C-alpha cells in the first residue's frame, strides 16, 4: 500500500489509465483507507469535466457565416 505522497504521484496516470495493474491495485488499496486522497481524486475528476465545460466557448454565428463564405465551390 502506498502513502499519500505516492498516491498524489499516481493521480494523473490513474485517471488517464496509464498505470500498470499492480500500480492500480496499490493506489486503490490506499484510496480505500484514506478519505483525504479519495476526496482529492474525486475532486480532480470533477475539475477536469468542469475545465472542459468552462473553457468551451461557442463560435459566433458571424464567424460561422464568414467561414461558409470562404467556400470555393459556391
Amino acid at each position, binding site marked *: 500500500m502506498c502513502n499519500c505522497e505516492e498516491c498524489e504521484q499516481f493521480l494523473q496516470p490513474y485517471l488517464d489509465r496509464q498505470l500498470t495493474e499492480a500500480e492500480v491495485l496499490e493506489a486503490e488499496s490506499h484510496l480505500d483507507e484514506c478519505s483525504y486522497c479519495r*476526496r*482529492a481524486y474525486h475532486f480532480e475528476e470533477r475539475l477536469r469535466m*468542469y475545465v*472542459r465545460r468552462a*473553457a*468551451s*466557448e*461557442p463560435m459566433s454565428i458571424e464567424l460561422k457565416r464568414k*467561414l461558409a463564405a*470562404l467556400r470555393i465551390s459556391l
Partner: protein
Amino acid sequence: MSEITPDTDARRIAREARDRVRFEEEALDLADQVYRVARHMVNSREEAEDLVQEAYARAFRSWKQFTPGTNLRAWLLRILTNINIDRGRKIQRTPDVQSLEAGDYYLFEKLEDSGGEITDEERVDERLSQDSIVEALSAVPHDFRDVIVLVDIGDFSYAEAAQILDIPVGTVMSRLHRGRRILKRQLAEEAVPDV
C-alpha cells in the same frame, strides 16, 4: 497517346466538384470543434476568429492534399497550428516553467484549507468560477496549454495531439501532466487569495 474525350473530362470535373463540396461541408461541420481549440491557443476571441478564418481559407484552397478517410479534424488543426506558429508565436523556454508547477494536490489542499472539506456532492463551480478557469488557462505557457486544450478540451487522443503539434507522444504526455499542474497552481492563485 490516349485522348481525353470531352465526356470523360466533363465527368472528371463533375466528380471533382462533388468531392470539393463534400470536403467543404465536412470541414464546416467541424468548425465548432476547431474554434473551441483555437480559442485557447491564442489570448483573445478576435485572434481566434482570425486564426480559424485563415485556417479554413487555406484548407479550402488545398483541399486536394487531404486524404479522404483520414482524420479531417486533426488535419484542420494541424493547418491552424502551423499558421499560429508562422505568425511568430514566441517559443517559451521550459526552465522557468518549473517555478509555475506545484504538486497535483496543491489546488485541492488550498481549497480545503480555505473553505473546508470538499464533499462528493459539492459542485466544483461553487469553489471556482468559470472566469477563473479561463484566466488560469491563459496564464499557462503555450507549449503546455496547447496540449491541455487539444486533449482535455478538444478530446483529441495523445497520438492526434502529437501529430497536430509535431512532437512525440511521450512529450504530449509529459506536457499534459505538467500543464495540468501549472493550471491548478494558477487556479489556486486565482481562487484562494492568500496563496
